[in-house]
């Protein structure tokens, strides 16, 4: 009896903590992505806010050494690169001029200039300060948060292509899920043949291109870009390149293996697109429930 009495509080504590963890997971999953709890505040936000400068401080000596070495190595063939780039620039300038002439001739340049403003999304440069502490999830911590205008659901890109999506924000930092994560799926198309499929992360440095209709024109070396159909990422962002195509056999769908356009091992700086896609805007509207009327009126404005 005494032993039972001694064990009861401990059992209650274990059950309580386990129940809390399970409920937290269910709530985290059931709530719409970007529900109010994704905007961390209080002690949880403070942990994320503290993490960014601490991780920056820890990685500073490594960064310094790595950058010094990289710059030294890149200096060795800078002259050759410079010559090559100058030649390429001349070719591209000539091509650009010809295209402009063609557009002016067809009368489309003015119209393009008019609609350009609609497609220009403000970008926020941000530094990558840390990666996911668990090897089984692929997310990164960036040093820009809500006070810089970053919100959950905003796409993150680099100069090479699509990086991921902001999932959690605090005042001065944000967490972004990479396209490599096993929970990530992006609607993509082959740039050359316009064949559609889903780019799914595998948790490794490669991705899968799934649900491609049998007979679709997919070849090794093809570039996959975002289709914009999911309403999460804008159309036309480079995602990956096809490295192998599976034999569909008798299956209706075929798949391909992709390598991301972004070298995630060397990723240092990213850009947060400060505009959410229409799907994300709808999903995250819940966090501004009080302002729904205002948002609706804003959307209906010409």
């Amino acid at each position, binding site marked *: 009896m005494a032993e039972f009495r001694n064990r009861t509080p401990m059992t209650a504590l274990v059950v309580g903590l386990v129940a809390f963890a399970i409920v937290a997971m269910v709530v985290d999953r059931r709530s719409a992505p970007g529900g109010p709890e994704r905007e961390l505040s209080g002690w949880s936000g403070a942990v994320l806010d503290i993490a960014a400068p601490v991780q920056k401080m820890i990685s500073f000596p490594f960064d310094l050494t790595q950058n010094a070495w990289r710059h030294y190595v890149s200096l060795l063939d800078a002259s050759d690169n410079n010559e090559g780039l100058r030649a390429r620039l001349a070719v591209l300038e000539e091509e650009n001029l010809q295209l402009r002439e063609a557009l002016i001739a067809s009368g489309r340049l003015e119209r393009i200039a008019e609609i350009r403003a609609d497609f220009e999304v403000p970008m926020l440069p941000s530094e990558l300060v*840390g990666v996911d502490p668990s090897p089984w999830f692929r997310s990164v911590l960036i040093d820009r948060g809500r006070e810089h205008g970053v919100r959950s659901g905003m796409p993150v890109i680099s100069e090479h292509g699509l990086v991921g999506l902001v999932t959690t924000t605090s005042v001065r930092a944000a967490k972004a899920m990479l396209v490599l994560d*096993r929970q990530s799926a992006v609607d993509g198309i082959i740039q050359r043949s316009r064949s559609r499929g889903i780019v799914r992360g595998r*948790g490794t440095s490669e991705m899968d291109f799934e649900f491609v209709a049998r007979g679709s024109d997919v070849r090794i070396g093809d570039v996959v870009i975002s289709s914009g159909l999911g309403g999460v990422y804008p159309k036309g962002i480079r995602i990956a390149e096809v490295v192998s195509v599976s034999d569909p056999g008798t299956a209706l769908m075929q798949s391909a293996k992709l390598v991301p356009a972004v070298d995630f091992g060397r990723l240092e700086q990213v850009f947060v697109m400060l505009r959410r896609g229409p799907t994300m805007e709808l999903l995250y509207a819940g966090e501004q429930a009080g302002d729904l009327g205002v948002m609706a009126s804003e959307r209906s404005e010409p």
Partner: protein
Amino acid sequence: MKRILALLAIGTLAPMIQGAIGTFIPLRYCPDLGLLLVVGLGLCWRSAAGGLVLSAMLGLIADLLSGSLFGQHMLLRIFAFGAARACSQKLNLRGLLPRATFVILLTVVTTVATGVLTSFFAAGPGVDGEMLRELVPHALINGAFAPLGVWCVERMSIWLSEVDAGHQLLQLQPRNRLT
């Protein structure tokens, strides 16, 4: 109290350090500092309830910094603490090899549990060949660092106890002199 606060601070720093190191080295080749800390608590911490709450809090902090579901690391850290505690009572986990073997097995179990929980609660593909391939080096690295990790927690726990005890003595001495 100081012991708990100090370990909580170290536990908060552990995933941050790991996240910073992860930008240079693939994480499968890094020891899971959070897991080693919790195993150390399970093997050395006197109060089971205190260690359990501390482990749960360390898991919660890891959840905040990770892309996992909120509560996932917390659940796994509770399990790791419980497993370490239970096994230390039934088995001899004092040597280098038993500790390393125990941590390797625990890494395998917690990784499989991570895959299962992710596929159950989220849209992940569960445990697959890729995950198992990455698990092998990660489990071995964790095993290799396990004796050192547990030793560090042990020493830290003793040192912090002595600090607490030292302060108590300092407070008591003047009273003795006055009486």
